[in-house]
C-alpha cells in the first residue's frame, strides 16, 4: 500500500488527507456576496484555477447557479457586442460654440 507523507502536516493516510482538504470545501457556506463574486468572475472570463475550484464546489451544492452563471456570461457578451455609438461629425465645433457663448 502506498502511504503519502506530508511533512509538517502529520498525515500518513492519503484518504485522511483527501478528506481533510475536500470536506471543508464541500460543506462551505457560501454567502450571497461570495456567490456574486464567483458568478461575476465567470462572466468576466477571469477565472483563476482557484476560482474554478470554488465554482465547482458552488455547483455541487447549488447546481441551479450554473444557469445563472451562463446567462450572465451570455448577456455580458451580447452587451459588449452592441455597436459603439460615436459622436456626430462637427461635435467639437458645436461644443466650442456653446462654451464660447456660455462660459
Amino acid at each position: 500500500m502506498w502511504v503519502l507523507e506530508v511533512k509538517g502536516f502529520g498525515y500518513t493516510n492519503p484518504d485522511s488527507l483527501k478528506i481533510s482538504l475536500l470536506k471543508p470545501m464541500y460543506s462551505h457556506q457560501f454567502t450571497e456576496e461570495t456567490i456574486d463574486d464567483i458568478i461575476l468572475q465567470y462572466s468576466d472570463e477571469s477565472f483563476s484555477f482557484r476560482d474554478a475550484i470554488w465554482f465547482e464546489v458552488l455547483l455541487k451544492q447549488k447546481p441551479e447557479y450554473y444557469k445563472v452563471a451562463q446567462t450572465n456570461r451570455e448577456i455580458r457578451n451580447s452587451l459588449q457586442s452592441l455597436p459603439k455609438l460615436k459622436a456626430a461629425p462637427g461635435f467639437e465645433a458645436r461644443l466650442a460654440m456653446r462654451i464660447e457663448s456660455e462660459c
Partner: protein
Amino acid sequence: MKAISAAKLYNLTDEDLMEQFQNGTIHAFNILVSRYKDRLHNFLYRYTHNHEDCEDLVQETFLRVHRSRHSYERIAKFSTWMYTIALNLAKSLYKKKQRMQKVSIHEDPDDSESREMVFEDSNVLQDEHLHQKLCVKELEKALMELNEEFREAIVLRDIQELTYEEIAEITGTAMGTVKSRINRGRQQLQEILNDYMKPETK
C-alpha cells in the same frame, strides 16, 4: 506645473491634462474632449435613446467639466469624476422625461428623421446587418425596461467597461451592491428578452 508643448500634451494622462487645463492650457481640455466624446455618447445614448438629447447631455457634461475645472482634485480619477457628472445629468433628464409621461422612453417619434446612428463597424453583409439591427433593437429596448439601478450598473460595466471599483465610486454605492446589481440586472435582462421571444397568446 510648467506649460508644455501641444505635441507633448497628447502623451499626458487625463489627470495631467486636467492640471494643465486648470493652469490655463485650453488645448488640454480639447484633448480630453476628443478622448471622451465617443465614450460619453455611447454611455448617454442608453439613457436618452434620442440623438439630440444625447448630444445635449454630452455637451452639458463637457460644459460642466469646463466650468468646474477648479473644483476637480487629483485624488479622483478624471474619468470617474466626469462619469459622475454625466450620470447625474442623465438621471435628471430621465426623471424629467418620466414626469412628462407623454414621451416614450423607448424611442422618440420625433426623432425619426434625425441622423442615423454612427457605428464603428460598418463592414457587415446586408443580411447580417439586418439581423444585427433586429437583435440590437431588442437588446436596447430590454435595457431601457430594466430597473434604473440595474441599468446604470450594467451599462457602466458591460458597455463602458469600467471596473467594479470605478462603478462603486461613480454611483456612490458599496462594491457588494454594485456586483449584486450587475448579477441581478443581467438576470432581469434575460427575463425581459425571454418575454419578447414568447409567442403572443391572444
